[in-house]
């Protein structure tokens, strides 16, 4: 029984590692300028966690195999080094490991979050509400008009609550249910929640940030690859949560310019 | 001169340390432990405090955590938005503060009198229940005073949902008052034991620690509300 158990543990450990090693299910391809930092950090962590996982499972299996049927009269043996040795090993091995992960992880995090957006970054406002995203571009004047919660109306397609009759800045704002951005240009995304907590997750962009009602956050990123990607909500927001999504189109600068013109005409 | 001989109160004397061999009963492994084989007898203190003494500190720790949670909620919420409305606390609160301090003093007088008897310093405890009744009365007066403060605010049109500062005022004071009511229940129990069965020293001490804690907690809350509201 014990030997079968030991073999089972080994098989499960190897079986668990195979899809990781074969990259059967992998993170989607990175299309951002900062994403490689996350990916490298992820790969390092996977190596360290994977080795820890395999080594400890194998040791567990080996000891079960070896010590489960002792000979009669066998004596208890102590692990070389004893508890002190193991504690020191844990501090040295795991301590260095987590210190390294912590420091490099902090660098990766810092390079994503501690840098201000570039001055020429393209400002886009995204509003999350049950169960859709809407995007607003400031238009030629480069300024967003103010929001009026009481003027929000789904029926009139006034998703943001803009007052285009009174607010000068709002008149040229462009609202779209789809997000288009130019490739290789930094985007400064201003996040606003209409109602509840939502989240903005684009795995390819290596971007994930919650919308916090009452607190407008912003993130910035640069996409490096033209294509169409999905934006999904990851913060439980109600019955339609699973279906709350929008498309992100990364376009060349020319395509983006013509898209903006086209959208402006639709307003 | 006439002398009054009091009926000895029904109070249990302190437990005596037991240096003998294991007796029936548990709880002797307490703070200092008896080590029967090769132990150092000088370090031996063969009984632990009755569980009520430990239990009350544990309970007070939990209450402290709860009010710490309320406090941090208040600070975070105040900083979260600019809608915080400052207001003047109802002045009856300061009167209530005096009442709850007085009640603690009354209880301490009662406790010391009983403790002196229990510890064998005095043969009799002079009418120990009297000061307990005073404490009970002052405690009820405090709750009544708090109720007066709530009604006063409400009559001025400031309800629970008027502004979040009022919300916190009501939540903190009501939570405290409920705990005070619990303490009053404990006092009633102590009086009942004194009158009808046997009062244990640990019960009395635990109840009075709780009561003093309610006073300290109120002083803290008053300071917090005075600073933040």
């Amino acid at each position, binding site marked *: 029984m014990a030997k079968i*158990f030991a073999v089972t543990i080994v098989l499960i450990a190897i079986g668990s590692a195979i899809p990781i090693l074969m990259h059967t299910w992998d993170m989607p391809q990175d299309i951002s300028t900062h994403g490689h930092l996350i990916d490298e950090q992820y790969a390092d962590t996977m190596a360290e966690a994977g080795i820890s*996982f395999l080594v400890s499972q194998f040791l567990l299996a080996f000891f079960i195999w070896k010590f489960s049927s002792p000979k009669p009269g066998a004596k*208890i043996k102590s692990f070389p080094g004893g508890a002190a040795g193991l504690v020191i090993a844990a501090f040295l091995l795991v301590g260095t490991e987590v210190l390294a992960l*912590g420091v490099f992880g902090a660098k990766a995090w810092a390079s994503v979050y501690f840098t201000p957006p570039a001055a020429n970054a393209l400002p886009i406002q995204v509003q999350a509400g049950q169960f859709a995203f809407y995007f607003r571009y400031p238009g030629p004047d480069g300024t967003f008009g103010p929001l009026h919660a009481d003027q929000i109306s789904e029926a009139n397609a006034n998703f943001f*609550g803009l007052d285009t009759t009174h607010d000068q800045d709002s008149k040229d704002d462009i609202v779209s249910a789809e997000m288009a951005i130019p490739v290789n240009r930094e985007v400064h995304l201003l996040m606003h929640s209409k109602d509840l907590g939502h989240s903005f997750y684009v795995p390819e962009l290596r971007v994930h940030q919650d919308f916090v009602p009452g607190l407008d956050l912003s993130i910035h990123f640069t996409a490096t690859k033209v294509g169409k990607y999905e934006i999904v909500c990851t913060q439980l927001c*109600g019955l339609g949560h699973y279906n709350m999504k929008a498309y992100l189109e990364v376009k060349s600068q020319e395509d983006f310019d013509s898209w903006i013109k086209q959208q402006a005409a639709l307003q | 001169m006439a002398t009054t001989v009091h009926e000895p109160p029904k109070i249990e004397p302190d437990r005596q340390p037991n240096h003998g061999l294991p007796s*029936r009963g548990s709880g002797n492994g307490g703070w200092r432990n008896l080590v029967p084989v090769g132990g150092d007898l000088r370090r031996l203190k063969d009984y632990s405090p009755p569980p009520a003494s430990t239990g009350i500190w544990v309970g007070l720790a939990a209450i402290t955590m709860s009010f*710490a949670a309320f406090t941090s909620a208040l600070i975070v919420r105040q900083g979260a938005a600019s*809608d915080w409305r400052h207001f003047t606390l109802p002045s009856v609160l300061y009167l209530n503060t005096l009442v709850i301090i007085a009640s603690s003093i009354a209880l301490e007088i009662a406790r010391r009198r009983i403790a002196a008897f229990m510890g064998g310093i005095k043969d009799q405890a002079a009418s120990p229940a009297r000061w307990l009744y005073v404490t009970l009365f002052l405690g009820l007066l405090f709750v009544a005073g708090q109720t007066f403060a709530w009604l006063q605010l409400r009559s001025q049109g400031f309800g629970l949902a008027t502004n979040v500062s009022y919300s916190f005022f009501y939540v903190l004071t009501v939570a405290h008052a409920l705990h005070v009511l619990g303490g009053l229940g404990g006092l009633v129990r102590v009086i009942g034991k004194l009158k009808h069965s046997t009062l244990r020293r640990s019960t009395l001490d635990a109840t009075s620690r709780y009561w003093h804690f309610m006073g300290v907690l109120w002083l803290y809350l008053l300071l917090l509300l005075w600073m933040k509201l």
Partner: protein
Amino acid sequence: MHDTSAHAVHHGVPTSFIRKHVFSLDHKVIGKQYYALALVAVVVGMVLSWIMRIHLGWNNFAIPGLHLLSSTGAPGNVLTPEYYLQLMTMHGTIMVFFVLTTAPFAAFGNFFLPIQVGAEDMPFPHFNMMSFWITFVAFLVLVSSFFVGDGPTLGGWTQYAPLSAVGAVAGPGQGLGVVLWASSIGIFCIGQLLGALNFITTTLDMRTKGMSLMRLPLSAWAWFITSIMGLTAFAVLMPACILLILDHVAGTSFFVASNLVINDQVLPHSGGSTLLWQHLFWFFGHPEVYIAIVPGLGIVSHVLITNMRRPLLSHRVIIYSMGSLAVLSYMVYGHHMFVSGMNPYSSLAFSFPTLVITIPSTIVVLIWLGSLYGSKLRINTASLFALGFISMFISGGVSGFFLAQPSIDIMLHATYFVVGHFHLVMAVAAIFGIFSGTYFWFPKMTGRMMNETLGRIHFWLSFVGTYCIFMPFHYLGIAGNVRRYQAFTDDYLIPLIPVHKFITIAALLTGLAQFIFIYNLIHSRFKGALAPDNPWEGTSLEWSTATPPPHNNFGDKMPVVYHDPYQYSVEGASTDYVMQTSPEQLKNAPDEK
């Protein structure tokens, strides 16, 4: 001489059925009541997970009879999107609170902590009785939300505001459902606080002669540490629940920000803080997952030591490690909030202690492995589950490396990776600890042995099945599969549905295997072989007394403790093991002082 037993047991042997089995003051009966409650809860929680899994694998599958649960939630026996979320919320809440908190901590702890410290009962038996019945009422309140209004809340077991705080306008179950949820959890907190009060006082004050703190078995230490965590964590959750209820019923604005618009209507709240709920909740929530797992560490150590016939390499190191886990658990809660909009500097401040927490966890695992080396391991169902626990704890633990780092957490937050991580390390591992404890202590609790063959079948199906369910969760998460979705309609998620089908089948089979356990439990309770006093040749106090223990645990004579809890294979001793109560002097095993 004064009779010191008076304060210890306030109650004699009960005679009426009600006092004996219902409103009992006996910690052993209360422990069994907690176990029964956990058993009922875990069956409910598991059936809910089946329904969810079937729905995730085959979205339009009609589950016969489901409309009986809710005709609106499952018209034509097919789950609606909102009802999926409602069942999911109930699954999480029931499992975390009423299974993982009650079974390893309240059930086993109640039964065995007083016995292991050598006490006749807990110091406050009335509080103990109230603790169970309050918890029971909390369970009823929670379950009642299935049957009133538009069903239970759909907000998830974390109940993030403002979804949980704005009321019925946010969706089904968000009105009355949330109020019932928050009331239930608030009531539950009171019950657990009373329990923790008893546990702490029992450990500090009720130990018998010679039972120094370092002579307590590791299981007793684990319950003691857990009760301290419970005392501080539940004392924070209760105020949070009160504030949440007030936002609902009194129109206050603790958690709801200004100018939120639902259905084109501006909500009447103003200025509330979204993150405040998350801070309060996770300050409780992270210790809570340790409340679920630390008793498992203690139980598994206890079971393994007995079956390895040797003490662990170090008794103290395990205790200090569990203690550090408890302390660190309060400093790391922010790692649940890396993408919540917290200050990015705070994220780093929470990341480091989270990584540091792997050190005490690793030490515990290494001490187990090092002690396994050179031992005389006995294989039985209890030790198999204990070893399975170690395997699960490692597997679930290593994924913590990823989630502890905010930079990687960006990719994995709110995906199935997280679901896989916490199910393995905290849910399934804790359940394995419960199983191990059950097979180990059942003889002492009931006086009868469990069936070993059925036990082993149960183990094999559970062990393999669990890995089949929860390992693939990690792969799904790496591929970006978002959790809490009732269907996968995104282009990149559709190719992952076959994996979900595989998981569903594994979950159904593993779940079915649990009925072998329940059958074994009930059958052995009445028909099992009679158990001797010390079937596993253990040394701690529970094995010194009769099986099942008498009403006051030790009969006429309280035990006196002479040794460390785990004196196995001591050279020069007359037997393979020396019980704590044996006055035999040991030359080669210096006792802890």
